[in-house]
């Protein structure tokens, strides 16, 4: 036995003098106990994976790398749509031998490059344009190669009608252009077209309701004309006619679930003076319904309305003798909306993440009537209303005569139809502003002025293209940031339970985002808007999933507190035992070696 080396000492009397029991031993040290403790330790270590498996929490596999690459790539490579432009020169006396369609095309392209910003801005065309040119003069017709191949334009068709007669009426000419080019458009995708007609008149540039614009007049200089054409392309068709060029894509008023609720409110400041009601039903059918249909690719819009009473404004208005009215200035606007008394409320019908835009018609009380808005330059506002981005808009409507209804009998007046139509037209303009578009029908610039034709639907085709490009870009940005933060969050909290549903939503969101990017690169802006919206909705759903809250219930501290009372002491015992046995074995082995050295 290893423990009793001294019992064997007497067997070797020959070396007994040299044998020192403190540093030597004659037998080999036993390994039984060492083996035992190591076995225990190993079996413990073997149990660790099972233990970890048993306390594991369920985490659905989430493609983190894909999420990160998506969010990075959206940041790095802004979404850029390919755009196609077409210029038609009618009745220009070009020298056809000198000027070819291709050179004209190049110079247009050159001008456009100059105008558009050097870096790719999300939701624009970047530098991804193609320009084709058609020249018609007399009986000649010359086209660039790409125009011929994609049959953009049928020569001579534009001259079939009475061109001079048509040009007098913008609306008519717009429709005519649409007819002329309508047939060829379906197959070739969206083409923005400028028709330059040389006539003996003042130069006018008009942008139509569809994807056309035309420039008519005494256009002697080809370079000037080309510059103007390029301006129409870049400033109007690509940048949506927004002046400062910067794109407020963050201010797209669409809820995270792709819905907008337009809430119309008629506020009677003091019903004791007069009560006004409106014929909202009719307005909804005649004015609002077409807009909703037009904006359907961008957002799912619903409309609701209410009439509220006893809702004074909270800012002050002063009496102006000259204008014989009460004046409130733009300085007071931040205080105009009285959130204490105007219980505009969120909507029960809408979901939690829908965007609600409030449209308020404010009928002032008798002691502040008529109430007018003064602009900073001292003039009285034409619309008598203002917008608050992402919240909505307010219009002050003054009754025709500011005298109190007599007697105690209160008659319910209706806002006259013409007034109501005017109010809703202003609302329409304000809605366009809330979407980031121009509300006027003229586009002024340092160098040029364009007339913009408006449409009964509120938004023209090219504006819708612009909006859906913007919307796609904004949605993808949001989707990217949401997925990026989700991935960071999930990775930073290793003990968070992640349900399969979240994993699925993330997967579908990634797929939809990929589809949207694919569609965008092919120039299909409607489809990409729809799938980008889907991607964003799914990403938000995953991020705001209720089960994400369960993180606090099974933290690492909790786990540690539950298991440490067992594992800490036991593992101490085992490790110490192994350590001691091993040390002892080494000592004893050294002793044995010393004896062997002596023995041999």
């Amino acid at each position, binding site marked *: 036995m290893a423990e009793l080396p001294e019992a064997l000492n007497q067997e070797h009397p020959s070396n007994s003098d040299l044998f020192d029991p403190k540093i030597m031993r004659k037998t080999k040290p036993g390994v039984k*106990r060492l083996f035992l403790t190591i076995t225990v330790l190993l079996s413990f270590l073997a149990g660790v994976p099972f233990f970890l498996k048993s306390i594991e929490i369920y985490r659905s596999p989430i493609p983190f790398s894909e999420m990160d690459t998506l969010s990075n790539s959206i940041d790095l490579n802004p979404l850029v749509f390919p755009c196609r432009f077409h210029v038609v020169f009618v009745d220009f006396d070009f020298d056809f031998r000198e000027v070819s369609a291709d050179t004209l095309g190049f110079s247009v392209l050159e001008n456009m490059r100059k105008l558009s910003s050097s870096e790719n801005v999300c939701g624009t065309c970047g530098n991804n344009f193609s320009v084709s040119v058609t020249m018609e003069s007399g009986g000649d017709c010359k086209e660039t190669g790409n125009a011929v191949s994609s049959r953009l334009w049928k020569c001579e068709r534009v001259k079939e009608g009475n061109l001079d007669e048509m040009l007098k009426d913008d609306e008519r000419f717009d429709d005519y252009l649409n007819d002329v080019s309508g047939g060829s458009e379906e197959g070739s995708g969206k083409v923005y077209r400028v028709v330059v007609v040389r006539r003996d008149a003042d130069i006018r540039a008009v942008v139509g309701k569809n994807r056309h614009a035309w420039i008519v007049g005494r256009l002697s200089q080809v370079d000037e004309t080309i510059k103007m054409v390029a301006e129409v392309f870049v400033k109007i068709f690509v940048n949506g006619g927004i002046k400062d060029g910067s794109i407020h894509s963050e201010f797209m008023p669409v809820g995270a679930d792709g819905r907008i609720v337009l809430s119309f409110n008629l506020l009677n400041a003091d019903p004791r003076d007069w009560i006004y*009601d409106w014929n909202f039903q009719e307005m909804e059918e005649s004015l609002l319904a077409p807009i909703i249909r037009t904006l359907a690719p961008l957002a799912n819009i619903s409309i609701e309305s209410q009439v509220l009473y*006893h809702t004074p404004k909270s800012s002050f208005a002063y009496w102006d003798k000259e204008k014989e009215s009460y004046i409130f200035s733009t300085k007071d606007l931040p205080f105009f909306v009285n959130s204490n008394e105007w219980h505009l409320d969120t909507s029960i*019908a809408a979901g939690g993440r829908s965007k609600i835009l409030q449209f308020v018609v404010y009928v002032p009380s008798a002691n502040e009537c008529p109430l007018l808005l003064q602009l900073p330059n001292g003039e009285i506002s034409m619309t008598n209303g203002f917008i608050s981005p992402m919240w909505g808009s307010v219009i002050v409507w003054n009754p025709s005569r500011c005298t109190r209804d007599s007697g105690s009998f209160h008659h319910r007046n209706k806002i006259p139809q013409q007034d109501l139509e005017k109010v809703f037209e202003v609302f329409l303009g304000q809605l366009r502003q809330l979407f980031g578009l121009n509300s006027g029908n003229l586009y002024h610039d340092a160098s040029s002025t364009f007339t913009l034709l408006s449409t009964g639907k509120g938004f023209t085709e090219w504006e819708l293209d612009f909006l859906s490009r913007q919307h796609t870009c904004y949605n993808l940005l949001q989707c990217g940031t949401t997925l990026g933060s989700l991935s960071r969050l999930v990775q930073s909290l290793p003990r968070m339970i992640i349900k399969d549903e979240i994993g699925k939503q993330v997967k579908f969101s990634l797929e939809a985002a990929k589809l949207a990017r694919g569609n965008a690169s092919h120039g299909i802006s409607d489809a990409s808007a729809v799938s980008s919206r889907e991607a964003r909705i799914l990403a938000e759903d995953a991020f705001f999933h209720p089960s994400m809250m369960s993180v606090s219930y099974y933290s690492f501290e909790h786990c540690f507190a*539950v298991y440490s009372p067992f594992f800490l*002491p*036991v593992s101490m015992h085992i490790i110490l*035992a192994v350590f001691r046995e091993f040390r002892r074995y080494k000592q004893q082995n050294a002793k044995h070696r010393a004896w062997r050295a002596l023995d041999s």
Partner: protein
Amino acid sequence: MALILRILLILLTLCLATTHELNKEEFHEELLLKPLSDRKILSHFHFRHTLPDVTHSHHSLFPKAVFQLVQKFRVRELELSFTQGRWNYERWGGYDPLSSSNAKPPGVELWAIFDVPQHEVDASWKNLTHTLSGLFCASINFLESSTEYSAPEWGSQQSSGKLRYGALPREAVCTENLTPWLKLLPCRDKAGLAALMDRPSIYRGYYHSQRLHLTSSEFGAVGSTTGIVLDQTLTLVLQPDKETGSMYSGSSIYQPNWSMSSLFGREVGGKCVLAESSTVFVLLEGGLVSTLKNTWREKEGHEADNIVVENSWSNPNFELSIPPNKVIEEVTTLHKNPSILYEYSVEDSEASKPFDLEFRWKNPVAWSSPKAPLSASRFLTGSGNERGAIAISLESSGRKDEKPQSLGDFVEKMRVSPSEDKVSPGVMEMILRLPCAVNSAALTIDFDKGFLHIDEYPPDANQGFDIPSAIVSFPDFQTKIDFLVGNSSKKSPMISKLQESRNIQSYTEVLLVPLTTPDFSMPYNVITITCTVFALYFGSLLNALRRRVAEEERHQREIAAKKTVRFPLLFKLLAMLRGQTWEQPPSQSSTSTSLINTKIVIKVIIVAGIAAGWQYYYG
């Protein structure tokens, strides 16, 4: 022929005119004041919205939120009440339409009938509770859990399983619930009768119940009403201020004088201009009227029947400061005393000429309110934390008919849906038929208290669990007050509500059941002790396995040999514990005592240093 045609045309236009009139949204506001026998005043506000046409979603008066709620959840009928205080059935009456429809259990009570397929009812209910909870700033969403609501069957006749009922007895009711409720009114509390609702005055009262009731018949239900009718009532029991009374007011025989301004601290500065009608009623109940008539008879010596009701607003007993626009008397059978209703229209009052009705008593009067046939009270019996029983005692309130009937079974029908742990609450519905001669009856239900899972306890588990009030209704006893009102088209909603025949209904007390609460740190304690035992077992097993007995003995002998024994007795004891014989070692000169001491000192210093360092960096 032409004549006939013209008549037809007139008829047609008449029809058109009436339908147009019918399709109008209407809003009525009314207030009823009623002196109670215990020197308090009942004030009952009633606001009614009617929406006859539900095809359009644009309304000029009807609240958008309620319309959307009805549309979204397809609610056919809904009642939500927030109540503080308990209705005193003994003193404030239990046998009149006001008490049986407006006395509500403390806290929140919600029931709703849905017009959705049977399997969607629960989902609709859950969504509805969440919506209402957001709308009224209350924790109605707690009713979402399936243990908190039930589906009673006999409460409502036409519910057919689509009724859900839930109550939260512990919900505190305050202004944050009243403000959203007022938001549903077109004038809120800016004008009209609601302007009386001065928050400190109305929350100072003895009873406060704010109720919202809506019926909708849009989903193809057959009913007398069409469209949506939204009734909002606020029932208050207030004590008039002492100062306004005469010098007798301190003594108990005089009823206190009161006025609207003394009750509410505010006056009505004109009607809400959007209301069709704005009316204040003063109701004198039958018991009071009969006592009054008796005193008049004594004083003036003429017959009770001869008293002209029209002039009764100023009589030897009391006086109203403003003559009423109309006095309406109840139509009764012979042996019942008629109630009198004084009607005031607020239409003419203005901000400069506020409407302030004052009620002055001239003579002391005492009367009692009619009580429900049986007064119910519910209490807990049993002791300990294991078993208990709920007892409901029904006491006859003295209303007895002469013919005692004998019945074999008291319990006519019974439906019990036993509670399932963590799934559904226990509901017991019984129809009892008691003979008229019965004086008192008692029902007891035994129950066992169970342990909940640790995470099912509420945060304040030690307070106990509330059991919502039981509803006692008397289907054979109906109540209404028939007033002699002409067949005028402008019928007041309040009067039509009073004229509706209703079952007598009352609520019992809320019960508080204490439940044994575990020590909530127990799981950790259990874990810790189990783990310690395991660790001890494991450690000692391991130690035993690798123990070298012989070597240890030898070691000990050596140590013992080395050491000078300073405490021989101790060593002897130790040896005895180890089961060895202890022999006195040969005395040796100790050389290493100082050395050992320094070693110990160094060890102690190192440990202290580590501890200090630990404290410094991690503490």
